[in-house]
């Protein structure tokens, strides 16, 4: 049985990875599952300089989901390379580094710095973050800005480049096309959907940042639809995520067009979810006599 999939010219050993920001830098979860069995570990989003993040509360549970407003807190590229990367290098898995910036220049400099580091197999650009120059609008909601920033980063790195799309757009396929035309080797989606919650007694937002990102099973139907739309629009591999809790969910994403999947919120619910999902996919392939995982991707029938 062949579980390997290609993300640009990176070959990962199986289609299950962790979603950025839900798996830290791998250390905390290593106790609950062997990172060496994962297709890839995607680390918490990094910026050039350390970022302190948003004031608490940062998390609110919602129906079959959760809102988070971490505010992209991270230790910065330098500390990551010196303190976290060595730990990840021990494992027989691919390390995908998620990163972001609040200006195109910051994106480029972060990408350049990461490019040099040993043990990084691919970069995932988070473009669902505010653009300081353009009055804090989100990079990933305007195809022109998207292609501008992706194009700039593309020049700055020789690593496989994954662009992670924001679902908070009218037509996700337009964003995917813009990213691919600008040089993305792969597309990952979806990032969280912006939402909020209110404490009716204090009449205050339940999140320190007022709004936050919705994740978990609640958003799965939306994520799946967007993966399907992007699959019809671009030729590059897709990493699907959004509410994947079990193998069945993951397989839905593969059938809809994803080549690989990322497990996010599920890690919080069951710390060994990612491997349980991998095992379930293998089980399914046996039952359905599927030899090669690639032959499952985009096989949605009757449409």
């Amino acid at each position: 049985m062949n579980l390997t999939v290609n993300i640009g010219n990176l070959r990962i050993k199986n289609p299950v990875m962790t979603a950025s920001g839900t798996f830290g830098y791998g250390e905390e979860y290593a106790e609950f599952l062997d990172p060496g069995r994962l297709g890839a570990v995607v680390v918490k989003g990094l910026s050039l300089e350390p970022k302190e993040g948003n004031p608490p509360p940062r998390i609110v549970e919602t129906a079959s989901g959760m809102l988070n407003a971490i505010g992209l807190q991270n230790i910065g590229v330098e500390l990551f390379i010196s303190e976290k990367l060595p730990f990840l290098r021990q494992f027989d898995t691919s390390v995908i580094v998620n990163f972001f910036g609040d200006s195109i220049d910051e994106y480029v400099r972060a990408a350049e710095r990461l490019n040099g580091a040993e043990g990084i197999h691919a970069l995932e650009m988070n473009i669902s973050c505010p653009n300081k120059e353009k009055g804090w609008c989100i990079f990933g909601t305007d195809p022109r800005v998207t292609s501008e920033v992706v194009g700039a980063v593309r020049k700055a790195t020789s690593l496989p480049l994954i662009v992670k799309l924001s679902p908070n757009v009218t037509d996700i396929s337009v964003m995917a096309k813009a990213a691919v035309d600008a040089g993305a080797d792969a597309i990952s989606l979806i990032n969280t959907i912006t939402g909020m919650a209110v404490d009716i007694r204090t009449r205050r937002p339940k999140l320190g940042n007022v709004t936050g990102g919705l994740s978990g099973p609640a958003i799965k139907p939306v994520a799946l639809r967007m993966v399907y739309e992007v699959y019809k629009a671009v030729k590059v591999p897709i990493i699907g995520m959004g509410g994947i809790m079990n193998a069945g969910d993951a397989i839905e994403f593969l059938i809809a067009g994803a080549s690989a999947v990322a497990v996010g919120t599920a890690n919080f619910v069951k710390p060994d979810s990612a491997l349980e999902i991998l095992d379930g996919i293998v089980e399914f392939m046996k039952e359905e006599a599927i030899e090669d995982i690639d032959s499952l991707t985009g096989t949605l029938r009757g449409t």
Partner: protein
Amino acid sequence: MSRYFRARITENLPLNSSHNIISLANLEDMEEPLPGQFFMVQINQGYDPLLKRPFSIYRKTAEGFELLFRIKGKGTALLKGMKEGAVIDVIGPLGNSYPLPSESQFPVIIAGGIGIASVHPLVERLSGKAYVIYGAKIGDELFMREDLEKIAGNLLLCTDDGSCGQKGTVIDVITGLRSRLREMREVIIYSCGPAAMVREVTMFAAEHAIKAYVSLEEHMACGIGACLGCVVKTRKGYRRVCREGPVFDAADIIWREDPR
């Protein structure tokens, strides 16, 4: 030995209309918990509610452990409804713990309401050696008193309505002890309870230059330090309640304007 294991509910006993004590038997080995540590406990079947819930380890038992919990919202309501025999996932023991007092330090433990669950293992550990101040709104919410009588060196109870112990808050009690505390050798305070109370305790400790360790609460997703969701503001920057906490040196905490 893993910190992710399954446990079977052996008893789920209501203490009053809004509080239960639940006993679990571990189906796998558990690490030895330290006073002040907590577990992330599964309370769901479907995906709503979704996240595990943090609960202090009230007591370690021969076969497993006990949690003392307040029915707060939908998760704890479901937990109250869980029957003997049900098997649930548990992550832990998690977080740091109350640093034990040195020989020269005299421990004063201050618990408000359900906060007793967090400090109880410490009271056990310091058996007989600690002053324990335990307050609640009404006597009906001062739990396991007999048990505490036995293990606390000196147990001072108080209630807002005076229905049990002294009338007033734990702050009133500790304030009343001021003079006595001064005579004593170095005092160290350990406290857990409602945010507003814990905050006052830290104020009191600061005023009287007393070392204090307090256990804080924040909403949690992972419980193990990965999501950065449970931070509190400290003089050292944001710190994770599930990892650098739940026990913090009171002097380090920067309180929010509105404690919820």
